[in-house]
């Protein structure tokens, strides 16, 4: 069971990074909305991942993206911030005692929980990403606008992808 989870996560990582770098990197609506779908990988890591490992995975994922985007450090910081929001949100909203779900997927946790979880994580990730990318406060309104539209775009793609793999039997 455990090794199966690891293999699934590695395959998911490779596919999402390739889709992000080869397809979504070239996609943009009016230079305002750019999707960053690879965050889905960090959202779907198992509940049992230790915090240190979670941060290491987020760091490596971010730095891989940075190598392809030529923006060293920007995606790394954003992914680490996402990991922090993930840990906080799960510790507040999930009761560990009588709990047997493995991964925080849409089919395991329900639409309401998953959409709120994804929205918070994506919003913080994009906020850090766009502010660090612009790196100045003079264009703050434009940066925030880009952040908002991109967050909506990413959230919609993440939820659509989750519905593709929706498994009704598990609930």
């Amino acid at each position, binding site marked *: 069971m455990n090794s199966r989870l690891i293999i699934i996560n590695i395959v998911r990582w490779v596919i999402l990074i390739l889709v992000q770098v080869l397809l979504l990197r070239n996609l943009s609506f009016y230079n305002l909305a750019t999707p960053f779908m690879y965050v889905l990988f960090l959202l779907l890591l198992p509940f049992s991942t230790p915090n240190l490992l979670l*941060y290491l995975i987020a760091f490596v994922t971010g730095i891989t993206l940075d190598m392809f985007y030529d923006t060293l450090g*920007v995606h790394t*910081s954003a992914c680490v911030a996402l990991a922090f929001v993930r840990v906080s949100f799960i510790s507040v909203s999930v009761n560990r005692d009588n709990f047997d779900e493995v991964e925080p997927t849409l089919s395991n946790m329900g639409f309401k929980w998953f959409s709120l979880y994804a929205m918070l994580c994506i919003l913080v990730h994009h906020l850090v990403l766009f502010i660090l990318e612009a790196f100045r406060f003079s264009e703050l309104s*434009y940066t925030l606008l880009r952040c908002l539209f991109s967050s909506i775009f990413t959230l919609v793609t993440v939820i659509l992808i989750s519905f593709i793999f929706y498994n009704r039997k598990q609930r």
Partner: protein
Amino acid sequence: MRNLWIFINRYNAFFLFIIFFTVGIVLTVKNNIYQRSITLNSTNEIVGEVYQNLNVATKYMNLGKVNDSLSIENARLSAQLFALTHIDSAKNETVKDTISNYQYTYLPARIIKNSITLRNNIITINKGSADGIQSGMAVISPIKGVVGFIRDVSPHLATIQSLLHKDTRMSVNLKKNNALGSLVWGEKNFDFRKAFVKEIPNQFKINIGDTVITSGYGAFPPGIPVGRVSNTAVATGDNFMTIEIRLLNDFSTLQYVYVIKNKFAEEVKILDDKIPHE
């Protein structure tokens, strides 16, 4: 001591966040100041290889367009050649040797990675220091328009700081009256088809549709067309004005570029270094 350890362990998520986030921020800031992290950008061997292989598909899709542009250029060059070889030999005239002191040489290169949607755009090309490319050289598009400057160089690849970058500035002037200005992109304009020319003195009359060319003061040869004026009153009320131009060069379909080698670049640099800076 034990209590401290328990405290840290209990809130480990927060402390780990602080540690990793600091590393991320430090990387970002370092990259913004020095812009010289060659190992972790797309001149890196592995990443460059991936882009180079995957670019094959895009190359095929744009083959028709590239063919057209090449044939246009071919026609232009053969017209020049015709003019040079079919000299009326009956006419007696002195021939000036222009080969030995030809100032600019052109080096063609293929783009293997390009972007137009980011805040600061970097282009990667498939020629590097082995082909004689050095940091700071000017890059133009084969048909018309400017592209940017060479930033980092590895043996077989190089990155170009595109015009679509907040730190890129070029010296340009108006073809009509030689009014000098500086070409910038960014600052509330993120459309890859437009750019601003700043610091033009107010006394010049500028009309929509006027051609803007390179001035020849920087790394670029003089007289390369850059764009046409599309809006003359972006910012006034000062001794200088800012105008908006529509770039001739389409960054979204760029496939090949010419890197310009200036024979006198070294000499200019040596002379510039002798000027005392305040």
